[in-house]
């Protein structure tokens, strides 16, 4: 008992200026619920298209046994989060509520754990508050409210494990949490190994060092095991995927992409990072690791979310530095801080606007609901990103789903899709329709306004309007549903 009290006292001494009210910040994710209402107000569906992707997988899993899912995982990679949700949820509506509930709870818990970790790392209270606020307004973090992300679960488990280590409590449970986190998102291993090493390097106690060394070996073995099993066989077929993509395509995620970095926060963070890099050599390896991870995130989108936590911290550090440095032109200090505040505010508000205006719209949903009610069944041709929404509302498959575009077996399908979108040759188009057994064409406003076509009579749009092979069966505020009337005599 005395020992426990001593430990507690020790942890309290660690951060003298910590204000317990800081924990209240972890309630801010509750305000994200307003995003659903904002989307509805802008006549969009409450959820983003990622949600429909997840819910379709859950529904798919719900009808299969575990063995069947594993057997099919060669085609569609197994996802533990969706599997667990499919086992918990009973109905479709129940699943929707579960996803919102879990993602909201997780976001609050993660924020709490983030504050706790920074506190344990003896970060000044001002920096904790700032970095938490920045984290809470970062696009990649806000967007997590719309679906239950495996990466987020993995980060949460790793956070708790790391916290237990920092607090010198239940190290075995911590290790177990690390292992569990790997089941949800394997790349977390890199973060775990690196930070375990950083912690090991700073630990002075011999006993702790031995324990850390052992943990490090376990983690490294796990990493080798996982990557040997899952990554190695996929290296060859997936290599073209990276080659074909534009080098900077992920960097553009910086510019307001729904799941990317926020540009002003990233810039602030780069200032904070530079300060950390040049002011002290203590964190050299940690900084190098983060720099490499950031560069990798331009290719591997999944790394953006875990890096957001560090980026928020460095951004807060930059703001703190600007506020606390001795200014020769004193008048400029407040002007600069005000401008930074405006900049971050503008970035967040424009992000919220983007997320509220993002498709799918209510009209798109209504057209699909009508399609199901009127029993129109068949493969639907549309943009690959619309496929989850189509499947969710109509149970009809799309020609191709966006996350599977780059699979080798889908290359032909994808090239046919591009050809059919831009061809004005009826014969060529009908051949492709027959080849893939396409029954319907679903056209949204975004497709007509630049996502596919730029002119009103371009490619397939011309054929839809001018050929009797296609019949418009439903139209609602620019959203069109066409039926392909197969020429049986031919």
């Amino acid at each position, binding site marked *: 008992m005395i020992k426990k009290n001593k430990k507690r006292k020790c942890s309290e001494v660690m951060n003298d200026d910590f204000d317990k009210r800081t924990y209240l910040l972890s309630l801010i994710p509750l305000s994200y619920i307003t995003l659903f209402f904002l989307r509805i107000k802008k006549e969009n569906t409450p959820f983003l298209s990622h949600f429909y992707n997840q819910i379709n997988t859950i529904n798919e899993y719900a009808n299969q046994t575990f063995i069947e899912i594993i057997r099919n995982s060669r085609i569609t990679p197994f996802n533990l989060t969706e599997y667990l949700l499919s086992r918990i949820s009973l109905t479709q509506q129940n699943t929707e509520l579960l996803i919102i509930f879990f993602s909201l709870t997780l976001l609050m818990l993660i924020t709490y754990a983030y504050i706790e970790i920074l506190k344990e790392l003896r970060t000044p209270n001002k920096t904790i508050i700032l970095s938490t606020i920045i984290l809470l307004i970062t696009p990649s973090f806000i967007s997590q409210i719309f679906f239950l992300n495996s990466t987020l679960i993995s980060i949460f488990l790793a956070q708790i494990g790391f916290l237990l280590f920092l607090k010198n409590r239940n190290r075995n449970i911590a290790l177990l949490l690390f292992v569990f986190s790997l089941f949800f998102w394997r790349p977390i291993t890199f973060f775990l190994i690196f930070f375990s090493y950083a912690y090991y390097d700073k630990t002075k106690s011999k006993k702790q060092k031995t324990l850390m060394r052992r943990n490090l070996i376990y983690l490294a073995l796990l990493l080798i095991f996982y990557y040997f099993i899952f990554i190695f066989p996929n290296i060859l077929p997936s290599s073209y995927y990276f080659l074909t993509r534009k080098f900077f395509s992920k960097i553009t995620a910086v*510019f307001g992409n729904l799941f990317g970095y926020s540009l002003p926060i990233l810039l602030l963070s780069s200032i904070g990072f530079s300060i950390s890099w040049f002011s002290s050599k203590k964190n050299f390896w940690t900084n190098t690791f983060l720099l490499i991870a950031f560069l990798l995130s331009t290719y591997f989108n999944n790394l953006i979310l875990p890096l957001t936590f560090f980026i928020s911290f460095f951004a807060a550090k930059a703001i703190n530095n600007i506020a606390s440095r001795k200014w020769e032109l004193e008048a400029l200090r407040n002007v600069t801080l005000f401008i930074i505040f405006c900049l971050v505010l503008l*970035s967040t508000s424009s992000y919220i606007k983007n997320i509220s205006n993002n498709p799918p719209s209510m009209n798109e949903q209504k057209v699909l609901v009508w399609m199901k009610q009127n029993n129109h069944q068949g493969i639907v041709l549309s943009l690959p990103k619309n496929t989850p929404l189509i499947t969710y509302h109509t149970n009809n498959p799309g020609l191709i789903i966006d996350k599977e575009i780059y699979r080798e077996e889908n290359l032909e399908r994808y090239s046919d899709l591009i050809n059919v979108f831009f061809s004005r040759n009826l014969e060529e188009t009908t051949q492709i329709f027959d080849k893939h057994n396409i029954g319907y064409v679903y056209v949204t406003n975004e497709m007509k306004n630049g996502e596919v076509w730029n002119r009103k009579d371009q490619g397939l749009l011309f054929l839809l309007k001018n050929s009797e092979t296609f019949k418009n069966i439903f139209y609602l505020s620019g959203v069109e549903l066409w039926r392909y009337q197969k020429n049986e005599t031919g």
Partner: protein
Amino acid sequence: MDKKTKKVLLQVLIIFFIFTINFFIRYYFFSQTPYFSDDASYFVLRQAEHISETGRPLFEDPYSYNSRNYFFSPIYHYIISFFLLISKDMLLIKVINNLLAATIVITSYLLALNITKNATVSTIISLTSGFVPVYFQKTLNTLSPTSIFFPILLLLVYFISLLKQDTKKYVGIVVYLLFFLIILSPLSLILILGLLFNQILTKIDGLRTNKKEVEIFIVSFFFYLWYYFLIYKQVVFETGFLILRQNIPFVLQQDYFLTPTPLMVFFLVGVIPFIIGMFSTYLVSVKEKIPQANILASTIIILVFGSFLNIISINALTISLGILLGVISCVGVKKLIDSFVNAKVPLLKTLVTLTLIILVIPSLLSSLKIGEDLIRDTITTQEVETFMWIDKELDDNAVILSSVYDGHLISYFSKRPNVVDSNFLMAQNIDQVWKDVRTVYTTLFYSDSARLAFEFGATHILVNKNTQKVYEFSDLPSFDEACYKEVYTNKKTNDKIYQVIC
């Protein structure tokens, strides 16, 4: 009146004289035509007129590209609209624009004097700055923020260099000028990066960084970011890094983002600015530490880097280089005069000064030639008649297909939508549009040209001097009576307008 005051007064009179000469030479040229020399000026004018009528810029334009949104900083347009409220006379607008542009004579003098503390050198610099050929060309008979941007940039650098003397007195002026410069043009980034690069060079040299300059950099950097994020956020969201290329069609990119050869800069910038300016930049950045000139040298280096990365348009690059090299050359000129003075040869100083003034003459003559060519190539009253005919005779729903260089003229004079103009930012699928417009004017098959015209929603096709020059033909090659009807011919200019009827 003491001797010192007399000397100052004489200097003021000399600078005022150079300013007046510069302005009247400008006046001689621009008063010869009631029109502006480029189509972009008519975009500015349309915006300014809209502001003077409604108080707001025209961000949603029903005419450009047959309806589109603009993204730009409207400060210069507000300034012009203020003068439009006083008088609608184009001559007044030209006078104001050129008066502002001619102030470069004064600001370059002030900065050069601050750097060299030598009135003779500063006078030579002010004379050359006013007649930097490319600056003279781009500010003489066109409406563009460039006319104010460079005088203010030099004034700002002057006040930044004064901060050391009296921080409290000048900090306010510096902040206001800095904010004004930033909102005036995105090109202000060159100065911000110049400030940063200057501090990096100082750090590399192992010297103490100037804290005031660092602070000015921080505030200007964030302000720049905030302001242009506010304006361009949608463009940035949709195009990402490609915003640096301004959505300029691929075919034109070679002309816009050309890496200049030394010979090209030599002619566009002038003799003294180029040779002595380069030498001075080398001196300032490597050998001599002149804090006032350091910012200029760093900005020049940033500009040269930018040109190699092909992210600064050739126009912006040559004007900036011309002005900055012109001003920084004061360091080299002073060094030259001083070295001859030290040689203790009688009258040598006067001789060197005279030689330098003689060296300015080619730049001056070059500017005069440029002015003459510019006015000669300016749109004429007869050519404007064609555009006015469209306004008077054609239906309100008419959409005119023209070359890219006539787009703004159609919007301004004809008050009808165009298919393409030189404001490319956020124009959808610009490469395809460029290619298709070219096809309309060059194909021999009327079915192709009429189909494309129909896809653009164009009701009429304009054939004039610009289309003939760009697409190298005398008349529409695909003309066929079944598909086109000639509705207008300008007998003086041979301009034609065809109606698409099939």
